[in-house]
């Protein structure tokens, strides 16, 4: 391996790491607020990429009717949840959020979809379709389980992942898709050439890290959101119910997922089941970051990306073995550092 190849591998690792980082950030966000390890995060990525690809092909993707169905189910779930304190305003709010919003998005999609919308419009539609799904999934699947153990929440997340992957196959078929890049530019940088797309990718990842860090570290709302995981009463006093905290964090996760999908789809082919493995790598990064720190998770994600890239060069058949065995020592190190001696409640 000479220096040029090493540079190319590092570049590849960083770009891949950026995808994992975006997933890791969402996982950290959702976990700190709701204690759910969001296995379906990878599905948001795939849905984002494939929805955009469908618009590019001039069709209306299956995610549009799915959005309507999820909205309707979430409406029912929200009404049941709020049955003890239902008034006209509340019903109106739920109906607006769960029925009118997806209805409007779907109407736009059906109106614009068949006419091959421009790339920017397609991206906007895609984000508008996938983002609310986060909130609806929270209302339908996780809100009723908010008191359950982390194990049960994790397993429920696996259930949601199975259902969404199955739907992905029905909507998009088994074959993959690509989308046109946001930028065709190729910038020479010494022996490397950097594509405009990968700069978009890395830049947006950094922006999201900074935004999340600022939101949770600096704003009162962010701090209150973090607090819901440990102290529900305190958060409620701040005017944030666990329902809202959950919807908000899930929606942000879905948004980041769809955005990552849009960013990655021009770089590689995305399949209905791509989400699981990249979700897993994001999970690795999130865990190495202790499911708490955004910069640590992002750094770990880039590390995973680089190990993967170098392993693909050195021993491609054993790439996953190398990646996953490499994380065991890291886990041991993290675990030893984080080890709580006392298990006082």
């Amino acid at each position, binding site marked *: 391996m000479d220096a040029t190849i090493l540079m190319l591998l590092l570049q590849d690792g960083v770009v891949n790491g950026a995808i994992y980082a975006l997933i890791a950030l969402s996982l950290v966000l959702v976990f700190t607020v709701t204690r759910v390890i969001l296995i379906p995060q990878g599905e948001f990525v795939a849905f984002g990429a494939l929805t955009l690809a469908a618009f590019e092909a001039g069709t209306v993707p299956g995610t549009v009717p799915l959005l309507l169905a999820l909205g309707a189910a979430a409406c029912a779930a929200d009404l049941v949840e709020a049955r003890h304190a239902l008034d006209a305003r509340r019903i109106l709010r739920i109906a607006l959020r769960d029925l009118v919003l997806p209805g409007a998005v779907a109407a736009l999609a059906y109106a614009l979809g068949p006419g091959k919308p421009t790339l920017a419009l397609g991206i906007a539609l895609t984000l508008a379709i996938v983002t609310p799904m986060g909130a609806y999934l929270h209302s339908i699947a996780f809100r009723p389980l908010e008191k359950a153990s982390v194990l049960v929440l994790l397993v429920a997340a696996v259930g949601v992942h199975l259902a969404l992957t199955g739907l992905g196959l029905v909507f998009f078929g088994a074959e993959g898709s690509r989308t046109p890049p946001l930028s065709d530019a190729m910038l020479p940088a010494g022996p490397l050439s950097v594509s405009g797309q990968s700069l978009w990718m890395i830049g947006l990842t950094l922006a999201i890290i900074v935004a999340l860090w600022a939101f949770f570290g600096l704003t009162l709302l962010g701090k209150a959101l973090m607090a819901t995981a440990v102290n529900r009463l305190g958060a409620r006093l701040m005017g944030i119910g666990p329902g809202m905290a959950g919807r908000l964090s899930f929606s942000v996760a879905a948004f980041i997922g769809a955005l990552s999908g849009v960013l990655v789809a021009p770089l590689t082919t995305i399949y209905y089941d791509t989400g699981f493995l990249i979700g*897993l790598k994001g999970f690795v990064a999130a865990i190495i970051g202790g499911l708490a720190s955004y910069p640590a998770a992002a750094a770990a994600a880039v590390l995973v990306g680089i190990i993967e890239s170098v392993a693909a060069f050195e021993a491609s058949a054993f790439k996953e073995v190398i990646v996953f065995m490499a994380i065991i020592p890291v886990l041991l190190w993290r675990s030893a550092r984080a080890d709580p001696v006392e298990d006082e409640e």
Partner: protein
Amino acid sequence: MRQSLLAALGLLLVAALPFVPGVPPFWFTLLNYAGLSAIVVVGLVVLTGIAGIMSFGQAMFVGIGAYATALLSLHLGLSPWLSLPVSLAASGLAALVIGAITLRLSGHYLPLGTIAWNISFFYVLGNTDALGRYDGLSGLPPIVLFGFPLVESRHLFALIWVCVALSILVTQRLLRSRTGRAIRALKGGVIAAEAFGVDTGRTRIVAFVYAAMLAGLSGWLYAHMQRAINPTPFGLNASIEVLLMTVLGGAGSVWGGVFGATLVTLLKDQLQNVLPLLLGAQGNFEAIVFGILFVLILQRAPDGLWPLLTRRATPLPPHHPAPAAPLAPRPAEPPGRVLLDAAGLRKTFGGLVAVNDIDFSVKAGEVVALIGPNGAGKSTTFNLVTGVARLTAGRVRLFDRDVSGEPARAIARLGIARTFQHVKLVGGMSVIENVALGAHLRGRAGPVRGALGLDGAEEAAIFAEARRQLARVGLAELADRPASSLALGQQRIVEIARALCLSPALLLLDEPAAGLRFREKQALGDLLRQLRRDGLGILLVEHDMDFVMGLADRLVVMNFGAKLCEGPPVAVRTNPAVVEAYLGSAA
């Protein structure tokens, strides 16, 4: 009772099935797969539901068992029966090695660690020539029983479900045994278990190895049922599926696990049959409907379906070994012998000095009380003496032996027992089982003896001892209640019975009278006086001054981590510094 009734009914149904004419043969195939999963799930119940160790790697151990027997029977022509022990040993050994590395992981690091192993295992299988790479190994011989090859599903059915029944039986035995109590105690907190001499690290490995061996058994059966194996059934997805089964059925009990495995297997098959009829279209809807159904069931039954069906919270029904003589008590120490001698104890957390150069001692036949306002460092001192917290400086001598820096379980071995300020009982265990955990160091039986039921005499003696101690503290009639159902004050008393079960020379009680009513306090005082007469040394932290003054021989008063004074109650009561710092404000 409903649990055993349902379980018995279920097993009976299964056992009767081969004798019912006209049963479609595929039912047997399906139930065979359910049985294979059930065996893995039973292990996972022990591991995840009971020991609290989340594993995403069980399919890997199934694979190790399957590949071990496949290699032996293909290359050496060994009969499957001869390769069975090798399969079990290979899975167990792999778990031992992997566990030794991975089980140190805490929290979420552990599930991820098991995922990492399982994924790596899959790719190693797929890229190893000797294991047939991705195509795997085929042409394995069937299992032959009395000269009769078990090829058809109907015939294998009996063998597989006998294995399921045996797994349940052995697991129930194991969980009831001395090792099993230690495994179940893992969920009640590592500290309490270690304080009674349980090596929790080793216990976690025992649970891990046991679950892996059950998985290996399943793998052995799988290999000779399919007669062809390849990496796919041993990948991460398969591990996730058995975890789903476990949680859906109810991870808290073995029966729940078996129920979950059967239900999921049948449900998935039925969905494939029924959905095309319902939806009127061929499609790939099974996974979607299964995922949705799964989440909905969890919402109705977050602890799994089995507890919902049986309305039972504890994993095991009450257990009554034959009456026996209690264990022989430890010979009493001569009165006045120094049991505990602490010198210059110091503990700092960062810049904060929690305990500042404390000296005191406890002799046999003496009650010493450690008092002081909240935050004075009493409980930390307790933890330093019992090896729960690490000393920053100072020295602890027990029976003239320097034990500074030794772990809690080594100190327990010397005959030191304690209770906790925050009660640490195992909620799902009955009161008597919690008390019996105190006698952990007085038994010898290991996991093998326990699982095979060869520990009867010892268990009977331990339970007799536990019953005796429970009677001594006046809670004999609550023996079979789940510990979590008791009032907090009663739970504190149960902790004392558990501590007594260790037959200690020195007893350390952390606020034993908190939450007790007047009469209960009187009874507790009487008990402690009786123990003092028996020659025990007692160190207690207590807030109730009346209780302490009437009982203690000596008081050690702490304030802001430092010792304020020491002496008999009368002297302390009149010490101006003490009055100032503590009694004054209380009076």
